[in-house]
């Protein structure tokens, strides 16, 4: 069983479109995260939720909106996609703030 699963794995879309990436974890963790990995492989946190409550909102454009319907799910919706949004987006979860993160397999988003 996949612990942190993201869909889709690949997403190719045109500028200006709206898209969503879904994330689910079956580990029973309270905290979930979205990280962005750019073309130079640098990883930066975007958001975190703890038990459906927004905890971290880094300086991310408001075109990005996370939604956590329950503590096992954290989806990422992106409006008006831009070329610079092309990256790999990783979902992760952890049982507590002091615990290591468990990462999903990533979603490679390509905006053309």
């Amino acid at each position, binding site marked *: 069983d996949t612990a942190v699963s993201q869909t889709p794995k690949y997403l190719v879309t045109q500028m200006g479109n709206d898209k969503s990436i879904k994330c689910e974890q079956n580990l029973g963790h309270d*905290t979930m*995260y979205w990280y962005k990995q750019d073309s*130079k*492989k*640098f*990883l*930066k*946190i975007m958001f*975190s939720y*703890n038990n459906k409550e927004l*905890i*971290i909102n880094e300086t991310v454009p408001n075109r990005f909106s996370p939604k956590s319907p329950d503590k096992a799910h954290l989806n990422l919706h992106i409006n008006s996609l831009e070329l610079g949004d092309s990256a790999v987006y*990783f979902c992760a979860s*952890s049982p*507590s*703030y*002091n615990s*290591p*993160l468990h*990462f*999903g*397999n*990533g979603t490679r988003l390509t905006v053309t």
Partner: protein
Amino acid sequence: AQSVSQHNHHVILSEAASLELGCNYSYGGTVNLFWYVQYPGQHLQLLLKYFSGDPLVKGIKGFEAEFIKSKFSFNLRKPSVQWSDTAEYFCAVNPGGSSNTGKLIFGQGTTLQVKP
């Protein structure tokens, strides 16, 4: 602001060579330290972590790391690398204690290429 610096961006070794990857962080308080590995096309996996106690920590696949508080360093080592160790290695930090929000700050990553 907190930051993590990995000195080696690209390392090329032959099999059986010893490995040491440098990691320094800037944060004055209690920290939790991690090394993650990302094999080609895969997600990040935890190699090892340090929270407290013995500063020499052992991880999976023969990796170890040493926390030197006075140097703000957490270098990763392996005595003898294998071709299968070819991957991207990331050092990461989050502040421990009550100010911790779980936010991991990553270094830029080190690409390790092991030649057979």
